[in-house]
C-alpha cells in the first residue's frame, strides 16, 4: 500500500504548482556532500518560503536521501515549515526577558488585530504570526521582528500600529 501511495504522489508532481527546477542548482551543489540534508532543506525553504511536498520527492530521487529521514528532520527543527506562509512573518519574542515584560500582551494584541492565532496565516497571505524563543535583543524587551526589522520596547498598541501600517502600505 505504501509504495502505491508514493507512486500516486509522484504522478501529482507533474501537475505541481511549484516550479521544481528552481532547486536544481541546490541539489547539484549538495548532492554528494556528507551532512547535506539540513542545508538542502534550508535552501529549498529559502526558494519557496516553505517546504512543498513535491520537493521532498524530487530531492529524495536525485540525492538518494530517504523520505522518512527528510520528514523526520523537517519536523524536528522549528525552522522548517510544511505550509505556505504570508509575505510578512511577524515573530513575537517570548524569551525570558520579554516574558517578564509581558510579551503575552503583544501576542494577544496582534492576534486580535489580524484575526489569527499563533502559527496561523491571514487569508490574504499577508501575515504569518509566530512566537519565537529569543531574538537576543533582551535589553529592549519586549520585541518583535518582521522581516529583518526588529521593533523594540513594544506595547500592544504599538505592535498593532506597526502591523496596520504594513497593511496600509501593501494595499496601496
Amino acid at each position, binding site marked *: 500500500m505504501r509504495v502505491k501511495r508514493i507512486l500516486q504522489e509522484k504522478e501529482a508532481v507533474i501537475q505541481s504548482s511549484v516550479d521544481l527546477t528552481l532547486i536544481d542548482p541546490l541539489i547539484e551543489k549538495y548532492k554528494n556532500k556528507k551532512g547535506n540534508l539540513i542545508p538542502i532543506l534550508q535552501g529549498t525553504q529559502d526558494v519557496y518560503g516553505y517546504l512543498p511536498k513535491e520537493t521532498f520527492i524530487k530531492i529524495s530521487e536525485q540525492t538518494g536521501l530517504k523520505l522518512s529521514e527528510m520528514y523526520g528532520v523537517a519536523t524536528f527543527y522549528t525552522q522548517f515549515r510544511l505550509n505556505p506562509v504570508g509575505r510578512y512573518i511577524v515573530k513575537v519574542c517570548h524569551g525570558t526577558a520579554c516574558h*517578564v515584560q509581558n510579551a503575552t500582551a503583544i501576542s494577544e494584541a496582534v492576534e486580535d488585530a489580524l484575526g489569527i492565532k499563533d502559527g496561523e496565516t491571514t487569508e490574504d497571505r499577508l501575515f504569518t504570526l509566530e512566537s519565537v524563543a529569543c531574538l537576543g535583543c533582551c535589553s529592549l524587551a519586549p520585541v518583535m521582528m518582521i522581516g529583518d526589522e526588529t521593533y523594540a520596547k513594544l506595547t500592544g498598541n504599538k505592535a498593532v500600529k506597526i502591523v496596520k501600517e504594513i497593511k496600509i502600505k501593501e494595499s496601496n
Partner: protein
Amino acid sequence: MKKTKVLVGLASCGIAAGANKVYNKLKALQEADKLDIDLKITGCIGMCYREPLVEVIDETGSYLYGEIDEEKAVEIFDKHLKQGEIVKDYVVKSDLFESKDDSFWDGQVKIALRNCGVIDPENIVEYEEHDGYIAIKKILEGKISQEQVIKTVLDSGIRGRGGGGFPTGMKWRFAYNNKADTKYIICNADEGDPGAFMDRSLLEGDPHAVIEGLIIGSYAIDASEGVIYCRAEYPLAIKRLNIAIDQAREKGYLGKNIMGVKGFNFDLYVKEGAGAFVCGEETALMASIEGERGMPRKRPPFPAEAGLWGKPSNINNVETFANIPYILLNGAESFSKYGTEKSKGTKVFALTGKINHGGSVEVPMGITIRDIIFKLGGGITDGKKFKAVQLGGPSGGCIPEYLADTIVDYDSVNATGAIMGSGGMVVMDETTCMVDIARFFLDFTCKESCGKCTFCRVGTKRMLEILTRITQGEGQEGDIEKLEELAYQIKDNSLCGLGQTAPNPVLTTIKYFRHEYEAHIKDKKCPALNCKKLLTYTVNPDTCTGCTVCAKNCPTDAIDGARKEIHFIRQDACIQCGMCFSKCKFDAIILS
C-alpha cells in the same frame, strides 16, 4: 593631528533601536560637508539601555553619546564634529568628566569583550591592530609546543563558558591524546537560552577573536577542520563571521600551510542551526551537523574519542574561544589573577529583565550578584522591590533576594540550586510571579525536549500541566509534592543535560518561594498579581468618574453603572480578562 574617530554601535540591539538611521544620517552629513572624519561601525558597546550609541574620539578625549536619534545626530555633527563643542547633555560616558552612568563601567574587566565596541568587526586590519592574530603568530614563530599551549590554557584555569564549567585545558588534552588522521574542533554558537545574548554580542562585535581561538585550538589538538555552529536566528552574527572567515583565509590565517608553517592546515565554516535548543548539547549538536535530527547520543564514547563523523572532536563555547588568544598572548597569569580559587578569570553576563541598566557586562568572577544588579545594573526599574534573579535559563534556577550576596563562581552558584549557565541574568521584581516563571520555563523545555527519553518527554509535559493548572486557580492539594517527585525522576532518568536540568526552575522556585505556590493552590491568590485567572477586579469608588468606558469594553457585560455614576463589577459574570483594567484612564480598577 589625528583624525576624529566616530563609532556607531551597529549590533543587533543597536539596529533594533535605530542605529542604522543614525549611521546613515551621519554618513550623509559627512559626505555633504566633506568633513574629514573617520566614521565607522562597531559592535556592541554593552550599554544596551542607552542604544543607539555614538562614540566620538577626538584629540581631547572620548565621548560616548547615548540614546541618539537622527535629530540628535545632526546636533552632534554640527556642534561637536564641526566646531569641537561637546554636547554634554547626551554624553553618557567620557574619560574627561564624570557622568551618572559611570557605575555601569566600574568593576568591569574586559577580556572576552576586549574589542567589542572598539573595532570595526568587518575589518580584519582593525583586529590586527588590536593585538589580533599575534598570539597564533607568537606560537608558530616561537615554535611553542602543543603541550605547552595546552598547559597555558590549563594554568589559566579557564572553565567552559557555555555553562558546564569543565576545564577547557583538560578537554583539549583529551582531544590531543586521541590520535587520529582527522580531528574536528567545533565552536558552539547555538545560544538557545531565552534571555541570553552574550555570544551574539561577541560574534557581532569581534568575530576574529573567536576565529583566532579556534585556530589556536586546532593547533593544540591537531584538528584540520573547524565548524562554527551558529543559530539561524542570528543573521548578523552569521554574516560577520563569514566576512571574517573570508578575510582570514585571504590573509593566510586559514587554509593550507598557515602563516608559512608547512603542514599546519586548518579551515573552518559556519553551519547554521535550524532552531532546536537541544542542539546546544554537544552530542546533539554533532548529530545536527551530520544532517540528522538533533538528538543526543550516549556517552561514552565522549566526543574527544569519537565525536563528529566518528572522529575525535573538541567543542567549546564562543566566549571560551574569545578568551584563548588573550590568554596565550599575555600568559596564564593575566587571566588567572582574576576570580576565585576554583573559578578564574572573567565572565560575560547579559543583564536583562526589570533592571535599569540592561546590557552586556564582563565582570571578574567573585563579584556578588547584588553588586552586579545594584551597582552595574543600576537597580530595579520604577523603584520596585527586587525579588529574584534567574541564572542559567531553562537549565538554571531563581536565586532569591536574600541570597543575592552569593558570589559569581561556579560552585557558589551551584550551591543555590541554580547554575552559572552561559550568562543570562534575568532580574525579577515583586510583580513577577514565580509559579508563572516556572511554568514559562517548563513550557519551553517541554517544547524543546527531543523526545528520546520518556522521562523528559512525558515528565516535562505532566509537570507543565500541573503548573498551568496552578496558575489558573485549579491547583490541588499535593501538587507541590507531585511536582517534586516528577522533577527528581526526570533528573535521574534523562540522557542529556536538557532533561537532567529541566526541572531546576521548578525545584528552585519551590525551594525559595513555596509560599507563592501555596497561595495559588490553597488561597487561589497570586501574590504578585500576575496570574489573571486568580485576580479579582473591583472598582475604586474614590477615583471612578462614571465614564462608562469599562462597561462598554467588558466582553461579558459584567459591569453595571450609568453615566457619571460609580460603576460596579459583578464577580459572577467577570472572566478576569483585564479589559476594564487596561481601558480605564483613571486607575479606578483595582486588582487584588
